[in-house]
């Protein structure tokens, strides 16, 4: 089965996030008010062949820990959709 994977990587709590901060400032300068706690992160999407969702999940977790996120500074979330359940 082929799954659609989305990984979202964001700075860990307490780790500087200069990009998020700058976006926040820039939005303020552009006149947008009421914007709080801006965080910037990375997104990785791909399709993955796996027997079932559990296998996909554990494989993606390993990818994240090994390569995609750096646990020293980042945390990650994984979203897995099988083609049937994927929203259009």
């Amino acid at each position: 089965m082929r799954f659609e994977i989305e990984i979202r990587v964001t700075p860990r709590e307490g780790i500087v996030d200069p990009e998020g901060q700058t976006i926040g400032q820039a939005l303020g300068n552009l006149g947008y008010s009421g914007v709080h706690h801006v965080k910037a992160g990375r997104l990785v999407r791909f399709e993955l062949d796996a027997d079932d969702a559990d296998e996909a999940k554990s494989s993606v977790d390993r990818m994240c820990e090994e390569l995609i996120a750096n646990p020293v500074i980042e945390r990650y979330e994984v979203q897995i959709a099988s083609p049937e359940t994927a929203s259009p």
Partner: protein
Amino acid sequence: MKIGIVRFPGSNCDQDCYRAVDEGIGAEAVYLWHKSHDLEGCHAILLPGGFSYGDHLRAGAIARFSPIMREVIAFARDGGPVLGICNGFQILCEAGLLPGALVRNDSLRFRSHPVRVRVERTDTPFTSKYDDGDVLRMPIAHGEGQYVADQRVIDALEGERRVIFRYVDELGQPAEEANPNGSVRNIAGICDEGRRVVGLMPHPERVVSKLLGTDGLGVFHSLIEFLQATGGTAKQVAEAGDGPGTEAAEAAEASTP
């Protein structure tokens, strides 16, 4: 003494490092290709600056899995001296040989200009030719050079005096204006617990000639002095069977100022 310079496909300071070793101090330099599994008997390893694999994902994230890095990691674990400059520093952190990480400069801009760094410790293979507190001028050129780590790690680094280089102002003080990238505590370079693995963001290999400045020469001279005194890693010394023995090496090392 043979110094290995690792070449990743996107390394771009490899030739400068080669020249620093070869012309700068007249020692033997060899390139080590990233796909290779062999350190070719090198006595020390340099990880040069550049964009190893395009620096996609995070600087150094992909480089650490290259075949040569497996060997470099083992070499470092055996006590072999390893110096990571700029991207090399980032790779050492990603590989877990040094703690912490290097994130985007606080300005979010690439920064390239000369900086002053203060030598904070001279009993390492890369700083013994300097005096404590020497202030060196070297260029930086990086987009991701902001050193971060959690408080516990920072405390440990400071407590064990493992910060080797710090950005300072013209008075030799680690002032905020002297910090080009937002690094915590103006950290420009650190070492591992065994003091054999050193990483720094500035480029000593770019200032090793009369024409362009000589402040970086000490890094390479220190390394040669260290290798001559110790004969390389314990393992290399044991295998070579000539050179000073392991104990002699340890003794020589202990006597390095």
